[in-house]
């Protein structure tokens, strides 16, 4: 579904990603793990075209998206929920969702699907986004990304700073999406959360990736976690 081949990118002269290659299949959750500064967020931004790729390619369902301008990438069905949520504070919940729906001209069925996944949002449709709690904001950010009806979803630390009950709801939403066949790429710092949800793990170190490891095998190789994440 999402395939990344020999992807490199840099901030000015400083190259951050070197030759990244991995794939995320439909109905699979792949987690990017690595220390701070390893290039996880940069990797996501490069996939989205927000940082231009120096070399390599990003393909979604066989179509190369790495040569497209950044605003065209989501139209190919890639949803991105960046770290820190970034809602449109002055717009209401309903308007935030509407902006998501308009990207690919999705209708009420998708809206209902999203609201079905996050019933809390339905109760708050007319409320301004900046009056929501942190967990509700994350739900809205997730919901808005789902409004484009994505086949690939990138999530950057979706549970950061949330209370456990909210984390559980976000988790549930992510596994529901996997069951529907969405390819999910997840950046997450909490290793226990990763191990319980991810199908495969890709370790990043200094902007380079190591071959993906199936999560189940990871339990037998704790030294990998020590080496790449330090836990």
């Amino acid at each position: 579904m999402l395939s990344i081949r020999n992807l490199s990118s840099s901030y000015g002269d400083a190259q951050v990603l070197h030759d990244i290659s991995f794939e995320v299949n439909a109905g699979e959750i792949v987690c990017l793990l690595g220390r701070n500064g390893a290039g996880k967020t940069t990797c996501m931004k490069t996939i989205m075209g927000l940082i231009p790729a120096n070399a390599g390619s990003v393909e979604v369902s066989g179509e190369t998206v790495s040569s497209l301008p950044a605003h065209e990438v989501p139209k190919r069905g890639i949803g991105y929920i960046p770290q820190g949520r970034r809602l449109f504070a002055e717009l209401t919940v309903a308007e935030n969702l509407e902006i998501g729906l308009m990207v690919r001209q999705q209708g009420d069925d998708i809206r209902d699907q999203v609201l079905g996944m996050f019933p809390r949002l339905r109760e708050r449709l007319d409320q301004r986004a900046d009056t929501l709690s942190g967990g509700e904001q994350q739900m809205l950010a997730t919901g808005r990304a789902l409004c484009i009806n994505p086949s690939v979803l990138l999530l950057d630390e979706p549970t950061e700073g949330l209370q456990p009950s909210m984390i559980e709801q976000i988790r549930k939403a992510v596994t529901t999406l996997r069951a529907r066949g969405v390819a999910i790429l997840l950046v997450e710092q909490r290793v226990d959360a990763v191990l319980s949800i991810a199908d495969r793990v890709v370790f990043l170190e200094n902007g380079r990736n190591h071959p993906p490891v199936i999560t189940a095998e990871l339990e037998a190789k704790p030294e990998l976690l020590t080496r790449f994440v330090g836990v």
Partner: protein
Amino acid sequence: MSEIRKSWGLHIGVVTLLLALNFILPDYHHGNLARVMVLACYAMGYNMLFGYTGLLSLGHALFFAAGMYGMSLTVQHLGWSAGPAIIVGLASGLAMSLVVGILSLRTAGVAFMIVTLMFAQAGYLAALYFGEYTRGDEGFVIQKAARQIGGIDLSDPMNRYLAALVLFAVCLFITLRVVQTGFGRVLVAIRENEERTRMLGYDVHLHKLLAILLSGTMSAAAGAGYGLLFGYAGATFASVQYSIFPLLWVLLGGAGTVLGPFVGTLFMFYLIDLSSDISTAYMLIAGLTLVLLTLFAPQGLVGELRRRTLRWLP
């Protein structure tokens, strides 16, 4: 749905009220209000870019003057009648905003302010330079005979008021409609978080350019209307002062509200008018009031109203 109906109701109500005032206001205020309505169109154009899209331009006088000169020069030197001349005014504003938009959108933030300011200064100096045609600062009077559309004499106070009201209503309803559409929401999204809007899949540059076109053309409509209704065109209207005015009006009335520009223009007009009755140091009184207002109603009059009670105000 009911909120949309409520806001249409309110804005149609305002226009109806202004129509009723035509028949009851004393002459002096009648003339003032006509002037305020035309200037409010300029403020509404400015608000589209500043209030809704979040782009602070310091050069809107260029668009206002483009409309004014586009209209008045064709009347004065080519002998066109007022109707087609207005079209020329609008087209000048559109063309000017297209050029300025394409060039200035290569910058952002403070640089955008400076670039728009410089363009407007260039426009002002051009108006002075071509003094042979524009008569520079002194300006020129548009003859009464030329100020007619379809046999209606626009220099007559009653007709002038109604024409100003028509222009005002058109600009008001266009603004209201735009902010209710998806396009308007995307503009607000850009104002709130440009990067995020792009990540979601919107061509931010294109939306900003369209906002400048709409804003510039609306400002030009106000400029053409002002010249035609009040019979005068001069380089003062291209000066930096006239770029600052709409910013002030919009800030006072409430940036990002549909009625704010009108309320702000009206307030400022009468603030200066009344304070100059009291003292020759009227700018001191006006200035103090403005300081107090920005301290206690930082979102502007209509913005504050929306924050406190009428949450549904567009």
